[in-house]
């Protein structure tokens, strides 16, 4: 049985990846995630300057998943270069994640931070809770998506993944713009919303930033639909992201057209071993169905329409 996959020339021994934003603060943590079965990892996003992020509470959970407003805390590009060194010694590909306030800053980030020892770079154009970045800065429009992707493309030879927002509509147009700008893959999706959770004892929103991006089970069906739409719009590979907790969630994304999946909130529900568990559940399913390779059912939902 072959559960390896390939995205833009990068080989993954299994289709589970660590999503950007959690656990990816340090090299040691990435190594720990890989030991727990991740086929690849995306680091927590890096900006030019150090950012403390929003005040706490930053992360809470609710019946349908998780809500966060971290605010892109990161040590800045100079410290991050030291943190994310000797990556070749790790046993899975590491993907950089960069942010910027406009295409010039993205280009500068690419120039200062890449290639390093990264296998690819992911551009987060879709954070819903950080002023100046992502959807709050309009980076999710087709025009800005293309502009930013192109600016990075001109400054790196690394494959580019563009991470897009589930709130961009029509999402296929945003994916097309990324492809036109030179993207090598689409990560679909980022957290949705923003949402708000209010403590009824005090009437106060719990997150200090008041609003936050929603991930986990509530996001899953929306992310599947986004992958399904994007698959019809572009020819580059898609990495599914949004509420993958069990093997069945990953399988649904693969059938909608994804070539790999990213996991974040799933760690909360099933521990760091979620990567191993999801991989095993994919294998069990393939054995039952007598599938030999992921290719046997990637985009199955689309093939059935023909």
């Amino acid at each position, binding site marked *: 049985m072959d559960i390896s996959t390939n995205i833009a020339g990068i080989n993954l021994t299994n289709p589970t990846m660590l999503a950007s934003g*959690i*656990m*990816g*603060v*340090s*090299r*040691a*943590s*990435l*190594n*720990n*995630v890989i030991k727990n079965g991740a086929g690849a990892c995306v680091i*927590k996003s890096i900006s030019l300057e*150090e*950012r*403390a*992020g929003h*005040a*706490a*509470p*930053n*992360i*809470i*959970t*609710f*019946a*349908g998943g*998780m809500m966060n407003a*971290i605010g892109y*805390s*990161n*040590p*800045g590009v100079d*410290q991050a270069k030291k*943190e994310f060194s000797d990556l070749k010694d790790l046993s899975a590909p590491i993907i950089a994640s960069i942010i910027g306030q406009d295409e010039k800053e993205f280009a500068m980030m690419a120039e200062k931070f890449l290639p390093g020892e990264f296998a690819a770079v992911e551009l987060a154009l879709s954070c819903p809770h950080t002023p100046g970045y992502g959807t709050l800065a309009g980076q999710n429009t087709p025009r800005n998506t293309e502009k930013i992707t192109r600016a990075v493309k001109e400054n790196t030879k690394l494959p580019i993944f563009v991470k897009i927002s589930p709130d961009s509509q029509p999402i296929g147009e945003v994916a097309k713009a990324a492809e036109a700008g030179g993207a090598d893959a689409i990560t679909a999706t980022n957290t949705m919303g923003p949402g708000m*959770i209010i*403590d009824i*004892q*005090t009437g*106060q929103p*719990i997150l*200090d930033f008041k609003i936050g991006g929603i991930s986990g*089970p509530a996001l899953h069906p929306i992310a599947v639909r986004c992958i399904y739409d994007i698959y019809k719009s572009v020819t580059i590979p898609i990495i599914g992201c949004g509420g993958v907790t069990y093997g069945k969630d990953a399988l649904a994304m693969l059938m909608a057209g994804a070539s790999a999946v990213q996991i*974040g*909130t799933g*760690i*909360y*529900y*099933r*521990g*760091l071993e979620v990567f191993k568990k999801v991989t095993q559940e994919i294998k069990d399913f393939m054995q039952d169905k007598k599938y030999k390779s992921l290719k046997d059912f990637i985009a199955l939902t689309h093939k059935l329409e023909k």
Partner: protein
Amino acid sequence: MEHAFGTIEQPEVLPIADIKQENERVRTFYFDKAMKSQPGQFVIVWIPRLDEKPFSIASEENGRLGLAIAKVGAFTEKLFTMKKGEQIGLRGPYGSWFTTENDYKKILLIGGGYGVAPLSFLAQQAKKQDITIDFCNGARTSDQILFKDKLHKLNINLHITTNDGSDGQTGTVLDSTNECLNKNKYDCVYVCGPEVMEKKVAEQCDKLGVPCQVSIERYMKCGFGICGQCCLDDSGARMCKEGPVVWGDYALKQKEFGHYHRTKSGKIEKTNVQH
């Protein structure tokens, strides 16, 4: 352990049930909340529109939770203006805890400064198991010694040290610790305080072949093992989940233990040796 869908990590807003002034900088805030917490675990306290901070649990008895908190910054300054009956949010308990075994006869607890708080919780529990307890409690001055009366009442062997000699023996908590370690055999040693002090104790225990448990505090955001902010070099272990309490020999293998930690942004900062 897997979490079921529908589990919720949100602060529960509760009135402050009581407040007790412990020493010049520390007050214990009590809440009527049974959490089934263990010594060494922590809760995260929320003051709306200000911040959220982790605090180790100083006691839980008969449905009343106690947090011994020092006034050290903006968050605790605000907390110290709050009166009995005012509401704040709590979530937890989180993290690993100090453990004892049924066959333990004698243990040594070493608390530096505010590190005394979780260890006094441990002393209370160990006393119920009929374990003999030596407790080294050190601070700079007599005004800063925490829980002196409370520990006296537990009828344990209390060794007080102050840097200026204003109470107990003159010196640091490491002096009384070394005396205890040289004189007695312990089933386990427990240490909580400034990290450089913790490291020295762990090294000494390692040399003597005595098991030792240490509490490692790191900046954290979620408290439930997902943000990745509190992971140690080189294991990547999360100090909110696999920690804060870890075995001393494990701690000594962590290259950042006693040397550095990461700030809120993730930037590396050297551990302060002057405590």
